């Protein structure tokens, strides 16, 4: 009898043992599913789709860079590196940032090699934000800024940019959003998804605002090589700004190395020290193979960057002109590899336009509102795809718009 009751108890045990709590942290539960992720699932279920939805170069990493990675493996370079990254790579980064951006960072103390700009942004925020600190960023923007701020218990506040201004940012709009709790401003020019750039005068005014309100700037420079008009300038290069700027950059876009997951942060030693504390216990170091490839990219890769940029420039001209001919008003973006045309005249929302276009013509674009509410009324079309696909896509979009 005792045996039976034990057995009975055991049989019902699993049910009693199931968790009653939701273990996922509240602030993580509060993070919405990415609008892109959502749309991705629909696209993946379809065949014969031409995608202008990708946020990465359509080029394979240049062969000599891939070859350097293979060589690193052959040489048995398979271990950890210094937490900061290989000194040889940090020296190459220091030279590159000096030559291209005219900012001087010491390889020994002011440069940290990271797993892409994504990790760099995460550890930058983790190392400077106290719960409740406010972080300003401009919208429409890359999807991860707001969630990254939320994850460190900061308060993200978006400053809107508009089509009429080619989605560039005004110092006065930033100033209007500043409160006593504002600590950080995130900049990303050229911008994903709008291709916006930030010109000379306004950049200086923004720097002025940051100095006046004692803000830290985190500048995401990932698209900086891909500018087609005026020479790109980083806010970190302006007088007095190096001390209050964390400069983030990487190899994904300019060198077509997204899958290598390699980037870096440059900042004054005290800030790098803070970031290092997070990095050493979370990531430890970036992959040595990617670091070796990055050295090759910086020392012998600039010709490839220039060649790819020229291709992007021609494709941009083609797609912007085509969108305007079709009747989708589109500004000539001066950077990155995205066109951000308006779909308002079709009477459809961003999402309706993208979903119907996908269903009827099998072309994937990303609805603009995936990049924040300010992106509503637009779609993002990347022109990093090759010309044959771009031409096909434009034909299909034209047919879709004509039929209404």
């Amino acid at each position, binding site marked *: 009898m005792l045996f039976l009751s034990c057995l009975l108890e055991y049989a019902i045990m699993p049910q009693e043992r199931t968790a009653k709590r939701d273990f996922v942290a509240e602030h993580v539960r509060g993070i919405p599913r990415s609008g892109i992720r959502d749309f991705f699932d629909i696209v993946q279920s379809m065949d014969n789709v031409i*995608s202008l939805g*990708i946020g990465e170069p359509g080029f394979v990493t240049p062969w000599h860079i891939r070859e350097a990675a293979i060589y690193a493996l052959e040489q048995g370079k398979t271990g950890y590196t210094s937490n900061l990254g290989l000194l040889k790579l940090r020296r190459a980064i220091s030279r590159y940032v000096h030559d291209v951006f005219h900012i001087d960072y010491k390889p020994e103390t002011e440069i940290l090699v990271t797993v892409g700009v994504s990790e760099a942004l995460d550890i930058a925020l983790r190392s400077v934000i106290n719960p409740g600190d406010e972080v300003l960023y401009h919208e429409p923007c890359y999807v991860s800024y707001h969630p990254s701020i939320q994850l460190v218990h900061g308060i993200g506040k978006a400053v809107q940019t508009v089509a009429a201004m080619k989605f560039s940012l005004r110092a006065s709009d930033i100033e209007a959003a500043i409160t006593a709790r504002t600590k950080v401003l995130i900049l990303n020019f050229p911008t994903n998804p709008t291709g916006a750039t930030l010109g000379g005068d306004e950049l200086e005014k923004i720097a002025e605002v940051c100095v006046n309100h004692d803000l830290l700037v985190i500048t995401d420079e990932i698209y900086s090589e891909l500018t087609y008009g005026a020479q790109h300038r980083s806010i970190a290069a302006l007088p007095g700004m190096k001390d209050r700027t964390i400069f983030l950059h990487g190899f994904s876009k300019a060198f077509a190395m997204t899958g290598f997951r390699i980037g870096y942060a440059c900042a004054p030693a005290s800030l790098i020290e803070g970031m290092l504390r997070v990095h050493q216990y979370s990531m430890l170091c970036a992959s040595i193979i990617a670091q070796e490839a990055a050295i090759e990219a910086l020392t012998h890769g600039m010709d490839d960057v220039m060649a790819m940029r020229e291709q992007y420039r021609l494709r941009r001209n083609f797609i912007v002109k085509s969108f305007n001919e079709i009747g989708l008003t589109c500004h000539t973006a001066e950077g990155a590899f995205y066109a951000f045309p308006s779909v308002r005249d079709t009477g459809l929302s961003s999402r309706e336009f993208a979903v119907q276009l996908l269903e009827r013509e099998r072309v994937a674009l990303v609805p603009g509102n995936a990049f924040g509410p300010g992106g509503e009324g637009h779609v993002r079309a990347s022109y990093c795809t090759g010309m044959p696909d771009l031409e096909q896509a434009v034909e299909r979009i034209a047919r879709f718009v004509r039929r209404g």
Partner: protein
Amino acid sequence: MEDPLLKLLEEHALRTPDQLGKMLNCPAEEVKRRIKQYEDDKVILGYKAIINDDKLDTDLVKAVIEVRIQPEREGGFDRIAKRIAKFNEVTSLFLMSGGYDLLIFVEGRSLREVAQFVAEKLATLEGVTSTATHFMLKTYKEQGVLVDGGEEFERLKVSP
């Protein structure tokens, strides 16, 4: 600096003036005019498809021939080189530095045809002092294009 129009045509000659105009930010008419000018000036020598012969059921034979020639007092290598260049079998011809003078690319329908060309036409030319013929066995890259591609990998269709 090289005209981007030439670069675009070099990559893909079938692009229409309309497409080219959109890429270069200029009217299609201007593209047509510039192309005509390049053709007249012999900057553009012609347009050809790059064909992968291995995919075709042909016995086309290709060879490169190293040729030594006796340069002439007047004109150096030019007279003989130009004479050789006129043969239909010759697809390309270059004057080279180094151990020989001319490098000739030839094509024929059979081994015999190429051998005959070398023995009967080329080696017998006055001024040609020696030839070395190398037959091509397999093509891996042709005019900048990898024959088996092999660089395509399925990217995510949508990414941030």
